[in-house]
């Protein structure tokens, strides 16, 4: 059975419902287990970390919808952040932001070209880009740290507006924008179509190669943007920025119900996945569980989530 657009109401409803249930269960569990959990300060921290995680995983969601993968997200984030930081630290705020976004976009477009026009499997193409972006980052930074940014810029990562952390607001806006694009524009529908059945997509007139280049480009652009938020957060950039993030980035997408085969899922899911991850990490720290167990928790949760999704699909479709 091959459907070009698998956005059956039941699928989406199940994802949102099940993830919300998980979030509610986690919150309830942690509120009971730790007195400091349900404070407004802690909620702010969780939301901020979830927002950051979402920004990192948003672009990847789009790529995965087309049946692809982007392993270079963390490295592209780091490279863009370093290039942007170099300019921002010298006072060229706008130029730095444009440079970071530009670098991210460029890397993404190269990924897209490799996958769509040269025909390199996305896994290898983006894996190669991971190395290339890391390498260029090392060469660019020469082992230095860039620190000390304009307070106006730092607000992007560390600031508040009406009591809400700015990254959360930015993430909310992005979530809404991407949701609209995915569900209400031909571009979004094309992504689902390509993921569901690339051949049929092409036959119905969708310029698949161009769309793929665009979607990888967007992924790179969003990685560049996420890089800016990260360095605004920690007020420093070095060539290691973005290195440790690969597993959580993919986990958030998968937890959100987006299938790696493409054609199924959405951006709301990724937002919920990011929230779940942030809750798990925060909860483990609250309970004093050694950080070594965090990878285990993430791995187990990812498997359980997919198990639930597959079981549901099997029973109801």
């Amino acid at each position, binding site marked *: 059975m091959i459907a070009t657009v698998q956005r059956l109401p039941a699928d989406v409803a199940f994802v949102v419902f099940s993830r919300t249930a998980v979030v509610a269960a986690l919150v309830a569990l942690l509120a009971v287990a730790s007195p*400091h*959990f349900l*404070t407004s300060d802690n909620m702010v921290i969780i939301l901020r970390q979830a927002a950051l995680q979402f920004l990192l995983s948003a672009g990847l969601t789009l790529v995965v919808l087309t049946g692809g993968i982007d392993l270079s997200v963390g490295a592209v984030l780091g490279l863009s952040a370093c290039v942007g930081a170099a300019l921002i630290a010298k006072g060229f705020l706008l130029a730095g932001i444009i440079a970071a976004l530009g670098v991210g976009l460029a890397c993404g477009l190269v990924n897209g070209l490799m996958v769509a026009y040269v025909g390199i499997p996305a896994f290898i193409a983006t894996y190669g880009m991971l190395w290339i972006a890391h390498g260029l980052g090392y060469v660019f*930074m020469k082992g*230095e*740290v860039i620190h000390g940014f304009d307070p106006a810029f730092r607000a992007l990562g560390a600031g508040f507006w009406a009591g809400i952390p700015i990254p959360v607001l930015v993430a909310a806006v992005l979530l809404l924008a991407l949701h609209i694009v995915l569900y209400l524009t031909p571009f979004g529908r094309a992504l689902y179509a390509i993921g569901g059945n690339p051949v049929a997509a092409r036959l119905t007139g969708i310029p698949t190669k161009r769309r793929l280049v665009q979607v990888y480009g967007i992924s790179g652009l969003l990685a560049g943007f996420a890089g800016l938020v990260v360095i605004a957060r920690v007020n420093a950039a070095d060539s*290691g920025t973005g290195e440790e993030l690969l597993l959580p980035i993919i986990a958030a997408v998968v937890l959100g119900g987006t299938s790696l085969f493409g054609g199924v899922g959405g951006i709301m899911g990724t937002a919920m996945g990011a929230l779940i991850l942030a809750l798990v990490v925060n909860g483990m720290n609250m309970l004093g569980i050694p950080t070594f167990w965090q990878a285990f928790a993430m791995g187990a949760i990812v498997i359980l989530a997919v198990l639930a999704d597959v079981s549901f699909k099997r029973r109801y479709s």
Partner: protein
Amino acid sequence: MRLLSILLAALIAVPVPVLAQGKPKIVVFTKNVTNPFWRAVRIGADKAARDLGAEVEHAAPTKPDNIEEQTRLVEDWIVRKPAAFVFVPVDYKALVPSIQKVNKAGIPVVIFSNRMTDVDFVTYVGSDDETIGYEITKHLVKSIGGKGKIVHIDGVPAAITAQNRKKGLERALKESPGIELLASQPGNYRRLPAVQVFENLMQRFPTIDGVVCANDDMAVGVAEALAAAGRGGKTKVVGIDAIPDGIAAIQSGKMHASADYSGHDQGYLATAAAIRHLRGEKMPKDISLPVVIVEKSNADQWAVPVEQKPAPDWKKVIAAQKM
């Protein structure tokens, strides 16, 4: 395929430097190319080579702190037969067989920053991590009046620097009964993980009087997190390494103090020791650098870019050693 072959051949055949006659070539190993601490080490090493008339090439794993890669680097470098190895292990146990191979090949080794056992080496250059951990913790304890609650943000748990610094912290805490250690969590020597761990700890413990961080990269992050939460004035943060970022934080009052773990000096002295050994000079088995605490009163001396740091005085350093 032909184009690729031409490109690749051109890339590789870019003339490999012919060994300058008479100038010994020394390979200086560092743990990675991301942490500015190791950059300072490399700059110090280059200075020593320039001052003493030798050539230095650097070796670092492409994946930061990667054991398997450093092992391969050592093996590949043995083939190139340098005059000496200046070496820091990414894991002080796992790299033992590799350095034993260097010993077998008859190439002298100077070890710095992380001690190793079961291998032959000309000398060990470093600051004693246990003493550093002890001194910086004691400094923090004194600054909060000997009473209070503190948190420890550890480095990479497997690293001997982290293990010994923690031992020093524990020794200092034994001598300070008025201090309660609320938690000890690893930040892996990296800023973002440390910030995230600490933020969560801040929620768990509304009152934290002091934070001991295993390095400055983490300490500065923690200090920023405190400032962002409006708790900067109530919590004193100390770190280790005295990197430029940390110095700036100390000068601005965000951080309280840092213990100098001079990568620049270690790199310089270790390379100088290797060169002097090749000339036939006798070396002490241990070259220890004294622990210096940097705080607001003396921070200006450290606010110098690494390239402009003065080279340590060899004779003075040696004289200060117990020979």
